[in-house]
């Protein structure tokens, strides 16, 4: 048996071990579950180490970019979380990571997620499609932004024609979202079935060679 055939058999047994859960939980399923967790964690660590070595450790060792000692130290400080007395030190790299990620998110969001999306909504209404997009977007925003007015009572001064318009708009937004979620669910079904088809193609195609 050559190595490729051996590999295919190992893959097939792994696949069937997971599917054995569909009949009932068993020791084989549990074993591959634990193996998968071990392999995943190891793989992530190997790739992470290679990343750190290429970008930080190697430049420091060769002297091309000694400044990279700073993130190496910050990264090592992460592991102080396991120390009883110095676990607070791990807050430094955590805070650093989160705030830089937050800053990058802000700079990206303002234009791409907000301004250009708003601009794309402010279009002349020429046909049914653009009417749905403009009215649907505005009413969806009304649903989320005016919850207090929608929930208020006449006694609180939230009644009246304006509140009625907002409540009506928000309700329309809700229906638009229901249609959107339904359409999205249809896509979700394709995703799930697609994942299963992939495994079936492997079992009956690559392993048993019954389908092309």
């Amino acid at each position: 048996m050559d190595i490729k055939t051996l590999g295919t058999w190992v893959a097939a047994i792994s696949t069937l071990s997971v599917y054995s859960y569909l009949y009932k939980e068993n020791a084989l399923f549990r074993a591959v579950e634990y193996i998968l967790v071990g392999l995943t964690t190891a793989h992530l660590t190997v790739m992470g180490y290679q990343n750190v070595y290429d970008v930080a450790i190697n430049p420091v060792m060769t002297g091309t970019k000694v400044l990279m000692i700073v993130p190496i130290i910050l990264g090592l400080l992460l592991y102080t979380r396991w120390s009883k007395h110095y676990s607070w030190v791990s807050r430094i790299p955590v805070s650093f990571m989160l705030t830089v990620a937050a800053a990058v998110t802000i700079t990206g969001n303002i234009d791409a997620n907000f301004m250009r999306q708003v601009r794309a909504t402010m279009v002349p209404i020429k046909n049914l499609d653009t009417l749905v997009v403009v009215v649907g977007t505005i009413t969806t925003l009304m649903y989320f932004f005016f919850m207090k007015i929608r929930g208020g009572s006449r006694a609180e001064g939230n009644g009246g024609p304006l509140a009625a318009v907002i409540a009506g708009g928000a309700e329309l937004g809700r229906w638009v979202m229901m249609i959107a979620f339904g359409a999205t669910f249809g896509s979700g079904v394709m995703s799930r079935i697609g994942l299963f088809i992939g495994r079936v193609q492997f079992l009956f195609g690559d392993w048993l060679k019954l389908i092309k």
Partner: protein
Amino acid sequence: MNILKTDIRWFHAILVLVILVPLFRPMGLPLTITKPVKDAYDLVESLPKGSIVLHANDVAPSNEAENWCQLLAMVKHNVAKGHRIILVSTVAEGPMYSDRIRREIAEPAGYVYGKDIVVLPYRAGNETAVTALAEDFQGTYKADYYGTPSSQLPLMQEVKSMKDIAMVGCWTSGDLGLWYIRQVEAKYRTPTVTGIVAVGLTLYGPFQASGQLKGLLLGQAGAAEYETLIKSPGKGLAAMDAQSMGHLYMVLLIVVSNIFYFQAKRQSAAAAGKGAR
């Protein structure tokens, strides 16, 4: 017998049969080409020979059935058009698939590694990794996935910034496309297409509609459509008949279960009414 309480394993077994039969006996069901996929195809068609294309390959085993077919189809198209390809990744599994593209598609087509195709290593950091490569591409990748210094790779020397990239392709089941829209497309206006798992329509639909994405491949159907356009059938197209039958089965389950549900509801209301009298 209350059919709604049937052992669910029977339905699982029927699902397996429903998926298997069309794989054994393809039915040749029709396939509609959608505009977002055609737009992606047209963009690749419009790029001249020698254009540098960046593929952000976040394919992993969890999305392989959808994203791998999409990426393969597009890379085959790039190779047919003579585009040069750079593969990057922000997931640990990505480079393993990029390596397969080099071995199985590019090199058999005569591509020279380092000149026509480069596989770059995994970079942690998610959106900040994308920011880093957009702002300082050569600084982010001092060596390729195999350890060869970038200075020895002619293709790497030609990319000084994202302005040197003719097109970005993002292949993911998550937010990768959004990161590239925010950090690359928004800042450098690099044409971007995304291949996403089918359920990603919610995330990416608005960006396709606003023109921030120049093309969008959704799930296995997107892969099948692209394979049809490039006239190179692959696993995406092979799966579509099984997808059809699987979808029909799910629809039948929903409809039939609701019929029985309403019937049971009416019966219990009638029984409650009789009991009250």
